[in-house]
């Protein structure tokens, strides 16, 4: 292998794309030729520099929310104009397509309606938000098992002060918090664990005084909604319905009190 061969094949070698024979020849050459070895070293450093996570652009929240399953069907036309620098053509195509989607795919709409009384878009939204939260690096914005760290973290990020309770003694340790969006507004999401399962608890100020607690099962997830002391709560998890009920009971009772108070 000559230095000229090496110059090109070095990159395939760096990328682990050479076959065994060529790799062996490359290794031999790099041991003998200091110039090529130095060059290899420089490219290795370059690769390492490019691997810094800061260079990777993750999708912004706005985009992620636009593509959460519910909002894509329910409000694409509302979401789109909020973008300021949209190319007119892209905008027209997007709006046209969204309209076509709504016209031609009644399944999306029926999917939202099929649950009859339980047809609350918040349920679907909470489930998809829960699923999204389980994807890599999306679960928590603030990682702490201490409610006195999690609660102040929300300060200034929301227009209300969420109730944060650690329920470790009841078997639901608090592991962190996150900002999320439900029903078109920013909400606080508290993350609890039950064994290996994650429970997301969303809360935001209630705009009506509905107090009945409701429980919905969908796609293997349990969603419990309730309103208390002017706050709307939605708990989502794949733990058993009984466990989630117990969690809600623990949260609704003052922390530390035995979870025996009957629900309204």
């Amino acid at each position: 292998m000559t230095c000229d061969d090496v110059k090109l094949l070095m990159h395939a070698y760096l990328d682990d794309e050479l076959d065994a024979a060529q790799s062996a020849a490359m290794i031999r050459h790099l041991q003998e030729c200091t110039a090529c070895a130095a060059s290899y070293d420089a490219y290795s450093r370059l690769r390492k520099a490019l691997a810094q996570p800061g260079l990777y652009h993750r999708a912004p929240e706005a985009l992620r929310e636009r593509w959460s399953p519910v909002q894509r069907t329910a409000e694409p036309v509302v979401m789109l104009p909020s973008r300021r620098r949209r190319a007119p053509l892209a905008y027209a195509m997007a709006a046209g397509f969204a309209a076509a989607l709504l016209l031609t795919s009644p399944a999306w709409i029926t999917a939202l309606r099929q649950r009859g009384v339980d047809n609350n878009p918040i349920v679907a939204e909470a489930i998809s938000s829960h699923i999204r939260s389980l994807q890599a690096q999306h679960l928590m914005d603030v990682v702490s098992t201490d409610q006195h760290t999690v609660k102040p973290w929300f300060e200034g990020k929301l227009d209300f002060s969420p109730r944060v309770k650690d329920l470790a003694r009841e078997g639901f340790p608090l592991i962190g918090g996150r900002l999320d969006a439900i029903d078109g507004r920013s909400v606080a999401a508290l993350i609890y664990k039950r064994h290996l399962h994650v429970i997301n608890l969303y809360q935001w100020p209630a705009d009506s005084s509905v107090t009945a607690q409701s429980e919905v099962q969908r796609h293997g997830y349990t969603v419990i909604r309730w309103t208390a002391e002017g706050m709307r709560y939605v708990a989502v998890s794949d733990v058993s319905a009984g466990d989630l009920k117990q969690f809600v009971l623990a949260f609704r009772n003052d922390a530390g009190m035995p979870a025996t108070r009957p629900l309204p």
Partner: protein
Amino acid sequence: MPTDSHAISPATDNIHSASFEAHVLPCLDAAYNLARWLARNDADAQDVVQEAMLRALRYFDSFHGTDARVWLLAIVRNTYYTLRIKTPQGSLHEPLDEDAHALVDAGPSPETLTLLAVDIGTLQLALERLPPPLREVLVLRELEECSYKEIAAITEQKIGTVMSRLARARERLKAELTCPPQGGTSP
């Protein structure tokens, strides 16, 4: 619509959309990363991804492969180039001067080695200055960790072309980092 349950097949459509959600939505970060590096600003990148996702949803039937990421990234790339052609007032006008800048690979100087060790901002600017054909292979390889075969599929090129472009891109990037262009937009 209970009145006309035979005309539509919600079950199929539900499976379809669930499959889209399961396969394509997890690739949103990858799609945005590629779009962001091609467009080099957030607003254009979001436009490209939004449009690409709509196309992906539209043509999801044609996805028969196993790797939705490669499929989606190819759509993102095509979307970027078509949107760019259709909006010529855009700021993106570099010629694809693959043969300009004859490569003078003088081996690593001590400066190279220190430069490479520091400053993510410099690295970002240097990468953004690369012409798109070089930038995209580098982003796909180094940030997205695609194999040559995957890059070839995404960019519709031969594997040999991918390899030589990657070599060229790295040489060029190294040169930029060793001796940044004078008078330009250096930080």
